[in-house]
């Protein structure tokens, strides 16, 4: 579809009310992109919108609130994104940045019965991406970016208890979800290439960044450790710049590299590139998100009142 909006990049950033997401929203808005940011609370969304507009008064930015720990909220967000884009005259989504992430000191289960970090850090990006693939397919250069982390190195998926229900450990759970991000991006690229799509997916390693992620749902000791550790990190603008580079620059698309840090490709962990692991995780995630019409879910609907 040819219209005046055709040259403007449309970009969705989840978790764009603080940290890397907010910094990236500012940079992308300043570069003239049409940005939809998401956040958990209306209030924080309003605040972030003002923040972006304070550095970029004519920013083309909208915020949508959604709690990404709930699959039905992720689906609702996807449909809100479709509506918002359509309302503003766009028929395509150019870039989806799955940036929202969380940490939890305790095993918390979501409304859908999943472990909180697993749901927010892995399942939400998985489902949101799948929901928005048709819109991304209409872009000339559809791009998916997931904020992963160097913590994906030196870990593996615990298949017998993937959500660590029985032996929960905050850092282990976090590392696993960041590994899942790389596996997801790798498998997504494989599937997209196989279907002849020109959408490309990247995992971004932000490095150690001074954000408040370590204060989300953690207890005193973890907060204290993060308080000191994060001070040694870079400011959120540094990874946000890499994010904007992956989103806007045609260069990374031609390299075939999936894992990026500081605007340069980097080797992800060997485990994250195992095709069988990535495929198994993909299929499990599909079942968890109810993407495949599961037989028993149909039966369950009949027996339910």
């Amino acid at each position, binding site marked *: 579809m040819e219209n005046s909006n055709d040259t403007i990049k449309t970009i969705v950033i989840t978790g764009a009310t603080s940290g890397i997401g907010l910094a990236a929203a500012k940079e992308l808005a300043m570069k003239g992109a049409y940005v939809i940011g998401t956040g958990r609370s209306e209030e924080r969304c309003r605040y972030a919108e003002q923040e972006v507009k304070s550095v970029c008064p004519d920013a083309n930015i909208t915020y949508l609130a959604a709690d990404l720990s709930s699959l039905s909220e992720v689906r609702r967000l996807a449909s809100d994104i479709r509506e918002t884009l359509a309302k503003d005259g766009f028929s395509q989504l150019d870039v989806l940045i799955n940036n929202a992430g969380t940490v939890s*000191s305790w095993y918390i289960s979501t409304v859908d*019965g999943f472990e909180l970090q697993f749901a927010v850090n892995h399942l939400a990006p998985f489902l949101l991406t799948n929901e928005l693939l048709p819109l991304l397919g209409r872009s000339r250069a559809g791009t998916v970016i997931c904020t992963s982390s160097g913590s994906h190195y030196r870990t593996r998926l615990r298949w017998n208890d993937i959500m660590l229900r029985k032996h929960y450990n905050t850092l282990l759970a976090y590392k696993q979800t960041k590994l899942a991000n790389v596996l997801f991006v790798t498998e997504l690229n494989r599937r997209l290439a196989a279907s002849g799509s020109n959408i490309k997916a990247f995992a971004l390693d932000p490095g150690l960044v001074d954000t408040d992620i370590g204060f989300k749902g953690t207890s005193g000791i973890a907060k204290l450790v993060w308080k000191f550790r994060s001070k040694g990190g870079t400011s959120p603008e540094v990874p946000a710049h890499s994010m904007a580079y992956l989103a806007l620059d045609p260069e990374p698309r031609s390299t075939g590299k999936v894992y990026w840090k500081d605007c340069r490709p980097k080797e992800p962990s060997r485990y994250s590139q195992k095709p069988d692991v990535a495929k198994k995780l993909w299929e499990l995630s599909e079942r968890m998100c109810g993407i495949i019409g599961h037989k028993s*879910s149909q039966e369950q609907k009949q027996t339910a009142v």
Partner: protein
Amino acid sequence: MKSRVFITGATGGLGKAFAVECASRGSDLFLTDISDASLAKLSESLANTYGIKVSFYSCDLTDAGSRAGLYGHIRSRCLMFDFLINVAGLDFEGAFAERTPDQIRTMVRLNIEANLELTHELLKLRDPARTFRIINVSSLAAFYPMPVKAMYSASKRFLLNFSRALGEELRSRNVTVTALCPAGMPTTPECIEAIEAQGLAGRITTCNVGYVASKTIDMALRGKQVYIPGLLNRILRAAGSVVPDSIIARAVGSRWNAAHTRRMRRHGTNKAYT
């Protein structure tokens, strides 16, 4: 035939953990709780993830009419169960004299009346050829008289004694009854706040809810009568049993009063803590 598990309070923190645990073991589920929308969400997700059958019925267990509706629903569908997990329960923390008559009634109805009635009802619907297992969620609070949580700890003591006695009564009829007596568990932001208000003592007596659910099912399958999750909690319980109740009540009272005050100061709320 596959095992079918009946869980009350299924969308709360511990109930959900039990539902996930049983689903991961391949059991079919029947879930009840007060919110139909929450039950629908959880049921769909568990059926999708674990490939099991899940049915649900929303019911206000504090209401006799609502409970009758639940029994009618089960009977009309000829459902049979071989596992009952009574999780639903609540607490109105704070000085007893300041509780409202409505709060008092609600707690007795949910923590005691509903549990007894449901257990009675489901025992009638068991398959006598199969072992029937019951888990009642009591509390570590059942072992001590607890000021500020007087009604709660007494109601949990009721469930502990009832479970032990019922287990003995039905031993020859292939029924096992397990009382789960956990310390506080971090299931909701309120619970986490309550645990953190207790400081270090709260944190080290706390077990993750997924672990508790998994171990409790193991214990029930072994026919254990009482299960206290966490080694430290078992030590506390053992130490508590050799100290006179009056001294324990005094000690617990001062600790809880302090923690309660800290929480109230922080928030000014009086929310339930289960």
